[in-house]
């Protein structure tokens, strides 16, 4: 074993990433600058007596890098372990490894760590907030901090595995993504009638019987209008219409419906 870099320095790398991971994003190299910034304490120590190696390594790390910030510690850990052993002779391998990993990790991380938890806990927090309680927000904080904290074991796992564990983890993560997607679909199914709330202003009167538009629709099927609206949007998105235009369409439509007295 060839352990030259202190654990304290290695911890600084993770700490820097967690604080600043995606905070200097740019269109050209995405997270390249952040990655280099995080790695610098390690690199300076690793190439103490080798200024040429240091320069080469820094220039390698400044290249394009873009992945899910929650899972990036795994890449950092792996990178550090290999580079500590092999020095600049490993740079080509590492560049390839980073490029190969960032795609799959982004796909898995974005759904399991971002989209699905944000949807579920965002909906819970928002619904509780509308009824005047901040408890849902605290619940969301706890989940966020837990997911963020997973960076530490992921970093350690990256260091331990080198490249060997990669394939088995990728298969496992695929299974997890699929299961979590099913959870996501069920929650989204429940969200449709809960958060989309078209409110009809029309009402019908016949003799002593008075029905609001909402009641009539509910008798046909509760949640009919929300479901129709969601599938309309889903269809438009499938036609490659940009979300920002759909927002504008909905706003114009809403103003029209309000002025005509159909919705309130």
């Amino acid at each position, binding site marked *: 074993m060839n352990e030259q870099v202190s654990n304290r320095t290695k911890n600084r790398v993770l700490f820097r990433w967690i604080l600043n991971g995606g905070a*200097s994003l740019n269109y050209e190299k995405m997270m390249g*600058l952040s990655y280099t910034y995080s790695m610098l304490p390690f690199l300076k120590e690793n190439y103490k007596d080798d200024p040429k190696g240091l*320069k080469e390594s820094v220039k390698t790390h400044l290249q394009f890098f873009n992945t899910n910030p929650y899972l990036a510690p795994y890449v950092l850990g792996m990178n550090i372990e290999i580079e500590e052993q092999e020095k600049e002779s490993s740079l080509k391998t590492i560049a390839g490894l980073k490029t190969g990993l960032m795609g799959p990790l982004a796909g898995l991380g974005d759904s399991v760590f971002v989209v699905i938890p944000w949807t579920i806990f965002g909906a819970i*927090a928002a619904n509780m907030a509308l009824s005047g309680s901040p408890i849902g927000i605290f619940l969301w*904080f706890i989940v966020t901090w837990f997911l963020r904290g997973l960076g530490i074991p992921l970093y350690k796992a990256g260091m331990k595995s080198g490249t060997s564990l990669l394939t088995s983890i990728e298969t496992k993560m695929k299974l997890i993504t699929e299961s979590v997607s099913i959870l996501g*679909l069920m929650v989204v199914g429940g*969200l449709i009638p809960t958060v989309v709330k078209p409110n009809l202003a029309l009402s019908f009167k016949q003799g002593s019987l008075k029905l609001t538009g909402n009641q009539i629709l509910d008798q046909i099927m*509760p*949640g009919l209008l929300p479901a129709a609206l969601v599938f309309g949007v889903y269809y438009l998105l499938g036609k490659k219409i940009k*979300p920002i235009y759909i927002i504008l369409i909905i706003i114009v439509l809403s103003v029209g419906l309000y002025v005509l007295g159909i919705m309130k």
Partner: protein
Amino acid sequence: MNVQFWQIALIVLYGFFINYDKNGSMLGTSQPVVAGFLVGLILGDINTGLYIGGTLQLMTLGISSFGGASVPDYQTAALIGTYIAITTGQKAAIGITLAIPVAMLMVELDVLKWTVNIYFQNRAERYADEEKYNKIELMQLCGVFTTMLVSGLPVLLTVIAGPTLVKSIIAFIPQWVTGGLTVAGNLLPALGIGLLLRYLPVKSYFGYLVIGFIAAVYLKMTILGIALAGAAVALILYRRNNEELNTTQTIGGVNDDE
């Protein structure tokens, strides 16, 4: 209401922090509902904050940015909308009405940031050639600073321009705008859900979507309840697929629908 200096200072600090937290530390303060709550807490009107934040949160549900796509910035908009609604003593609906255009305009600032940061990236590459590594760290910090400016500047401007200016703008907003945007607030969550569905494997697992829908409309289950039931189903399927994987050693059964 009379706003104290410490309250303004905290709001501005939070304004600079919110976009940094979104991209950097990710502690969870960069969400519309949290922004509404925190501003309400600082200004002493939690209910208005929760209402504005919660409404905007539902509008943005499922909308998140990946790989450099800029999306409307509802969290900073929630901060500004809540601040204005509370300090001018307006109804929450006014705060939401003002927040929506702010969120849309913020997209331009975000694009600007991504572009300006290319300069710092290029400078860092030059410093690498010159072996000035401390300067690379400085470039990173410059990039972090522009990220903070994206949300910090609009909040600072709001606080400086102050409720007086905004009040005169509010006086010009006709009833059909606020009324129309209230309707829009009820309909807009459909967009986020549509986006999410584009992201999830709807075609392979349509049945689960229907189960969730039925649980909400007929069984009147809350979202937390549905999430727990969904977690149970996911766990069962995960176990089963995992066993299958161990016995057959193939991953042919995994369905990728993206």
